[in-house]
């Protein structure tokens, strides 16, 4: 498969695909971070994760319309407002879902899967009823259109870079919050030993709700960011769910670093193979590789080895 290309071309290809892979990496990372918190920390299998992302995307769409209609002068900056709103909306809905459904199911993880699948159907049809079945496009602000020319072949799209920046920022924020703040240590305490955490005065019910809301909120940010590079439709969320779970599981459920590493390796593998094998085969091979590695290392890439 390499024989069709000259050595210099191959060099450029790998460089270009490396950058393309980085954008994919940012996408995967944003998708997976929220789930890493919800699934990794709480053990809840949130099949509606994709729909929370789509909520963020629709909020961004609405915000961009509001700005275009009422504050055209500020249009260049609408996206930052949209992202905050997307986070808040998704987090609020997440808290509501936790309160009505999830909190009754903490001792039945597989059932959270079924309930959240039902939830995802409800959300999809709500989007369809509210926003219509058609895909909606979000107007990208001017400063985000276009690209930087690095070499003849390598060109960096601004919106891709922007998504990368968001991914890095959100990852850092999650890391600081989960591992460097007292809030994070309380969350982890609840996860590791619920009765004990309750006994030392942590309001475990409240921590659960906030953790779930945080995960959903991050999904909202991810959805918001994706409007810059992709589309928004009522059922688009379903396309994300397999990839998202694989990234989290492959990384090792409880590890943020693992999620980063797994998002990186999966995206780079897929991006490079895509160039030579085409989209379908690249996807099949990537998924297959991940599944096989998981068979040999079910606990994922990164995990603490602990006494059972």
């Amino acid at each position, binding site marked *: 498969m390499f024989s069709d290309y000259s050595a210099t071309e191959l060099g450029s290809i790998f460089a270009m695909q490396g950058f393309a892979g980085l954008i994919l990496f940012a996408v995967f990372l944003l998708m997976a971070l929220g789930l890493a918190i919800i699934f990794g920390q709480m053990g809840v299998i949130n099949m509606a994760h994709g729909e929370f992302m789509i909520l963020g995307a629709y909020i961004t769409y609405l915000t961009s319309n509001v700005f275009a209609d009422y504050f055209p002068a500020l249009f260049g900056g609408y996206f930052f407002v949209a992202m905050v709103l997307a986070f808040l909306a998704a987090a609020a809905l997440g808290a509501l879902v936790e309160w009505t459904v999830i909190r009754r199911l903490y001792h039945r993880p597989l059932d959270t899967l079924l309930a959240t699948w039902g939830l995802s159907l409800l959300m999809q049809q709500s989007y369809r009823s509210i926003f219509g079945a058609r895909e909606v496009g979000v107007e990208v602000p001017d400063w985000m259109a276009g690209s930087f020319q690095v070499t003849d072949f390598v060109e960096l799209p601004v919106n891709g870079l922007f998504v990368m920046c968001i991914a890095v920022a959100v990852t850092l924020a999650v890391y600081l919050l989960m591992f460097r703040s007292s809030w994070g240590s309380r969350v982890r305490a609840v996860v590791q030993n619920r009765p004990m955490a309750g006994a030392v005065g942590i309001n475990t019910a409240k921590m659960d709700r906030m953790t779930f809301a945080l995960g959903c909120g991050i999904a909202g940010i991810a959805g918001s960011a994706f409007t810059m590079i992709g589309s928004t439709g009522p059922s688009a969320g379903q396309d994300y769910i397999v990839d998202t779970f694989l990234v989290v599981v492959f990384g090792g459920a409880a590890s943020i670093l693992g999620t980063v590493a797994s998002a990186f390796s999966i995206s780079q593998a897929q991006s490079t193979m895509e160039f030579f094998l085409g989209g379908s085969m690249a996807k099949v091979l990537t998924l297959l590789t991940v599944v096989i590695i998981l068979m040999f290392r079910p606990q994922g890439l990164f995990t*603490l*080895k*602990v*006494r*059972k």
Partner: protein
Amino acid sequence: MSAATARATNTDFVLAVEGLTVSFEGFKAVDDLSFYVDEKEIRVIIGPNGAGKTTVLDLICGRTKATEGSVKFRNKELTTLNEHEIVRAGVGRKFQTPSIYEDLTVFENLELCYPRGRNVFGALFFKRDQKVINKVRETAEMVNLLDQIEDSADLLSHGKKQWLEIGMLLIQDPALLMLDEPVAGMSVTERQQTAELLRRITADRSVIVIEHDMQFVAEIADHVTVMHQGKILAEGTAEKVKQDPKVIEVYLGH
């Protein structure tokens, strides 16, 4: 190959543990441990919390894989075997918290442990014949559960769950029985009944018991092994280890 493994040779012991080591992320929960158990001996392991007692049992029965060292049961290496193979070789294990099948009846709990039809098709075509029924009833009687043989196991009291678990081991007829705190959480009467039960069932097999209750230990033990920080601190009769100043310091001297 470590020196520990090299030492492992054939012996007359039922169980020969030599150079056994396991580390979790660099922490050695069990560190170069060696001890031997005789035929029909009752060995009690004591030690403060975190000494590695339960881990030793886990290592012997295959629940945790050893980092180094060997465990030989009647000269058969156990560290390379799976749990069920170790069980089939004749090692039975009771857990610290009662571990029984709560969705099944007492009868079914015992029947399930009856050593026949242990592969898939054996289980599928397993026949509940008179021999099985008699054996189950016999065992239920031994552990004082004959009256409740039809009851669902989750209805049993805590103490009776412990007995049921012991019964489930007995019906396997193991040559080596390992009990992790068999009287924990029991009332005084239950405790006495359990001690009596243990004396009866240990008559023709080797037993390793983990226990905290020194009175109970003194009552049943042939030998006592004291563990501390993954190593053996002292070994001998109950009386002897009680006198050992090192033991008093780390364990009894509170």
